[in-house]
């Protein structure tokens, strides 16, 4: 579910159909119901009830001054037993480039239950970069008292990492759709 209401440029909408063809249900506005020329977008009503759905529910909170507080928009998010809030960290971004920055960033977000090391540079990602991310994110996680749930890496590089990264975190393999999500 797409909850990024601040800067929906990289949101799921443009690839909604493609994802649905793969069996995912996507809760996001169709393009023709966008905000008539402005970047911000009103949320669809079904977003409010997303946690009532069956199966795995993934909420893309986006970024913003309110951090994870955006979850307030989803009915039951404050008390759902299975809900986990994961902060996806890319140390290649200047705002989260050091351990201190990552710690400060995660504290700003509010409720966070774990970190994901998603360090990358798009097409120019290297294994060394991913491993460097794993080291920094793991160090930050220790300071925060949070687990590192995974390191994520594109499928092209996954064989070079193996099942675990340099810090022993499990590796999740990504297939990138977002390059097609520009609109």
């Amino acid at each position, binding site marked *: 579910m797409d909850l990024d*209401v*601040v*800067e929906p440029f990289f949101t799921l909408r443009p690839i909604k159909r493609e994802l649905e063809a793969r069996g995912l249900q996507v809760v996001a506005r169709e393009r023709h*119901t966008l*905000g*008539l*020329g*402005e*970047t*911000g977008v*009103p*949320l669809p*009503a079904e*977003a*409010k009830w997303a946690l009532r759905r069956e199966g795995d529910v993934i909420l893309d909170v986006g970024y*913003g*001054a*309110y951090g994870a*507080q*955006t*979850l*307030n*928009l989803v*009915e039951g*998010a*404050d008390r759902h037993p299975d809900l986990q809030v994961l902060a996806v960290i890319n140390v290649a971004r200047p705002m989260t480039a050091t351990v201190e920055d990552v710690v400060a960033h995660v504290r700003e977000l509010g409720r966070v239950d774990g970190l994901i090391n998603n360090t990358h540079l798009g097409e120019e990602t290297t294994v060394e970069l991913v491993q460097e991310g794993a080291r920094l994110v793991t160090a930050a996680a220790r300071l925060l008292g949070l687990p590192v749930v995974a390191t994520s890496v594109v499928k092209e590089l996954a064989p070079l990492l193996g099942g675990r990264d340099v810090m022993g975190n499990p590796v999740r393999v990504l297939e990138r759709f977002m390059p097609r999500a520009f609109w």
Partner: protein
Amino acid sequence: MKGVQIQPAMPRSWRPETKPHKFCPGCGHGIVLKALGEAIDELEIQDRVVFGCDIGCSLLAWDFFNVDTVQTHHGRTTPVMVGMKRANPELIVVAYMGDGGGYAIGTQHLVNAATRNDRITVILVNNTQYGMTGGQMAPTTLPGQKTETTPFGRDPELTGYPIQGPEMVASITRDGAYVARGTVAKPRQLKGFIKRALQNQMAGRGFSFVEALSTCPTNWRTNAEDTWKFIEKEMTKYFKVGEVKVPPELARGKGEREDG
């Protein structure tokens, strides 16, 4: 109101083909537009109202009513409706805008239309930030309130205190003006204010202005409970709800007062 009147679920002046509307769940716009629709119905002016909407979330109302509608530019709805009213005084014109459109980019138009006592009705929706552009600070943002351009909360030392719109309009208008601040938390009262604002225009007395305190859970990041807490407890610390200026003739008017 005398006798029992069954309110239709949807005002007659709404356009059913464009419902459900496009506002977010919990958004106050729908309540304000319902109040306006009911006021139009009760005054039986659907055939001569022209609705002008601004940029921002208000523009989502461009096809909301079965009423002639013009969507303009950010802040420019007031002058479009002023020009229209002066060119054809038979029309009842409503300029509908947000706090950004009325109190920032279009302030000069609001101030001067009020000063000239233009016979138009302005409805300004105050939800304390810019909704459609993704939640930036507005002139109405509360001290300490987080927005995307005040990520650490609005610091009044740097960016001032929330603008007192109706109070400003009241102080620069003459006796014929009608000025009120309603809230979507009290829809019946809000409808009463809007209706009186329209009646004041119909009587040709002067400028009519209603600020509506409204909700924006999407950008406030609030659940239903916190949303209502914010509008009823936080916003009212800075924005006093009620009629600010009532022309004597309207005050004497029969039974239109609604206290919600």
